[in-house]
């Protein structure tokens, strides 16, 4: 066969790239200078020791912290062992995240103090039942790949709520979970719960069923709790998210490039310490970076800068070959309203197009203070749309359909052609909640706005009968871990009604 076509390139998917390789390298080498010249403050002695033993310079040691300066060769060494891929699965292995370059997974955000009551629309403190409800909705949404609590269980004890929160999530979903922990003991208890759920430590090693959320403090500070959790995670094969949340103009330079340099230095410290502790320790570096609103002082979750920074950081992590924690599906609106839909659509599209790995915070309103099941459900459809766009347009003989066009001819129609019949379902995305009816049918269906339809779907999901994910014996065993934690902390201030 004679080949005539040469130098033919295709985009299997549409592409978005914010930073060039040169810009990424400039940022990376700038981060290395920050680590070496400015250093980071570490508030945990063991962490300081690990760094020091690995070659770090330790200065300005006070009673509770030290300034740690990392020479660049330590970063190079750490990069040679940090995994380029992290896997987190659901307990029954049906759901699975393979986090590496250009793979996208969407999921919720963590501990919001408030939630919007799905029935009354009232903003109130989140409870165990709310966390369980969010998990059940996560389970029902096809484009939702992993879960985070989307609420703090505030009807359980303050010092041990994290275990109860995990239990509530396990009751509602069998998708991979990104947990938070009050402290090291909280991680330990939740790991024990995970062993129970997945069937033991060996099963965990075959595929961890949660990742641990760890958040260093910007600028350039790594607290006691953070470093303890990091070291524990390394020791126990727990994949962990290491995500600073720098705020342009407040806890990071106002220039976005400066923020990226700082955020990367903060994450690189996590990479260095973890690889010193145990080569091969699994990190997902992030991923939540934005600007402070200079009128209200809030942390912006819906700003274009948030989407742009996340996308740029994705470019950096692709170059680094480290899985990334990304942010989308969130808004600064107080309700699930037009602003929420608009901001979520923009940041979901950007995150999807650039290819962030573990894209979290779907369902966040109110600058991360309030969760909304309605925003979760609405975002599921936005994710569906962006996934369709990401399928791109394959161009070949069959898809260009010259024969079909010839057959139908001028003035004919394609509705009845086999080519249409065989392909319309895979070629054309069909929405579930978006309305495309004509006016009359829309009117007959009750003249409902998108918000009303989303609300109805939320109630439908919440009221659907579903098989319990945990049998009685397992539920009791998991609950026992939570109760024992409460028991241990009995003497402490455990006012479950602290918020009145």
């Amino acid at each position, binding site marked *: 066969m004679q080949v005539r076509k040469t130098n033919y390139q295709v985009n299997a998917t549409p592409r978005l790239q914010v930073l060039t390789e040169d810009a990424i390298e400039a940022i990376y080498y700038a981060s290395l200078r920050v680590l070496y010249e400015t250093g980071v403050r570490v508030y945990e002695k063991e962490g300081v020791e690990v760094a020091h033993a690995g070659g770090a310079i330790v200065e300005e040691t006070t009673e509770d912290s030290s300034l740690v300066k990392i020479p660049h060769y330590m970063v190079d060494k750490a990069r040679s062992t940090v995994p380029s891929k992290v896997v987190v699965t659901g307990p029954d292995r049906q759901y699975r995240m393979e986090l590496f370059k250009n793979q996208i997974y969407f999921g919720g955000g963590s501990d919001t103090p408030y939630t919007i009551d799905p029935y009354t629309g009232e903003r109130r403190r989140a409870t165990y039942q709310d966390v369980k409800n969010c998990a059940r909705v996560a389970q029902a949404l096809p484009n939702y790949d992993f879960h985070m609590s989307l609420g703090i269980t505030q009807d359980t004890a303050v010092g041990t709520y994290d275990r109860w929160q995990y239990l509530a999530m396990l009751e509602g979903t069998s998708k991979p979970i990104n947990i938070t922990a009050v402290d090291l003991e909280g991680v330990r208890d939740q790991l024990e719960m995970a062993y129970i759920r997945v069937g033991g430590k060996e099963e965990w090693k075959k595929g961890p069923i949660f990742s641990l959320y760890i958040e260093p403090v910007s600028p350039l500070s790594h607290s006691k709790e953070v470093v303890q959790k990091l070291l524990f995670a390394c020791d126990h094969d727990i994949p962990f998210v290491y995500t600073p949340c720098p705020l342009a103009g407040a806890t990071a330079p106002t220039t976005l490039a400066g923020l990226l340099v700082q955020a990367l230095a903060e994450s690189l410290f996590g990479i260095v310490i973890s690889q010193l502790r145990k080569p091969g320790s699994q990190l997902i570096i992030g991923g939540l970076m934005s600007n402070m609103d200079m009128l209200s002082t809030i942390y912006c979750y819906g700003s274009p800068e948030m989407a742009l920074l996340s996308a740029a950081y994705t470019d950096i992590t692709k170059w680094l070959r480290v899985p990334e924690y990304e942010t989308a599906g969130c808004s600064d609106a107080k309700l699930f309203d037009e602003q929420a839909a608009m901001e979520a659509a923009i940041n979901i599209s950007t995150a999807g197009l650039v290819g962030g790995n573990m894209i979290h915070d779907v369902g966040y309103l109110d600058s991360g203070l309030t969760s909304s099941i309605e925003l979760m459900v609405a975002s599921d459809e936005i994710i569906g749309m962006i996934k369709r766009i990401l399928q791109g347009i394959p161009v070949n003989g069959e898809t260009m359909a010259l024969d079909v066009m010839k057959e139908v001819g001028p*003035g004919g129609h394609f*509705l*009845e052609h086999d080519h249409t019949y065989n392909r319309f379902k895979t070629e054309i995305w069909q929405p579930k909640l978006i309305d495309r009816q*004509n006016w009359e049918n829309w009117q007959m269906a009750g003249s409902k706005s998108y918000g009303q339809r989303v609300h109805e779907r939320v109630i439908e999901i919440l009221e659907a009968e579903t098989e319990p994910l945990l049998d009685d014996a397992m539920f009791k065993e998991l609950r026992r871990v939570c109760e024992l934690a409460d028991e241990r902390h009995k003497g402490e201030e455990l006012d479950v009604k602290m918020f009145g």
Partner: protein
Amino acid sequence: MSEVLTSISNAIIQGKKDDIGELTQKALDEGQSAQDILYKGLMPGMDHVSDKFKAGDMFVPEVMRSARSMANSMKILKPLLIETGVAMIGKVLLGTVKGDLHDIGKNLVGMMCEGAGFEVKDLGISVEPEAFVEAVKEFEPDIVGMSALLTTTMRSMGDTIKALEEAGVRDRVKVMIGGAPVNQSFADKIGADAYAPDAAAASDVAKKLVKKS
């Protein structure tokens, strides 16, 4: 219910347009009447399709395939039905009105009506009022369906109705209109008998119109 009639219903639902002829013949060979095949095989299948379509569980290309299957079966049954004097559900005359070349919506209406058991004659695009009149005399439809996409051509619908009146045949037919720019109040204004917002509604409206007359 006979097995062969059930399989005819299923063939309609699954849009087996190439197998339905053989199945229809098989049913006749087994002694089923054309009337039973129509009313106990084809129609229940199409009703099911229509319900699924309205519920959003079936899509236009699938419905069209079911309708095509129905039409293929009707090709065999029609002469037999006429022979035995069984009334068809009705006849529909369709056309895009004068000055308008848009016909995808009208074609959909035609397929849906065929699927509902109507005999459909399609005059095509840019049909002059006089051509509608001639076809009414010749084809003797129960329903005249007119379509337009443009606000500039929707007025031809009124002209066509006037032409039918002037020719003295307006009373013999029900007039149904559709198309993006028209609505119920426009239908009322020009003296049409019915308006349908989409193809699925059109076949329902057509069924109601023939029941009334």
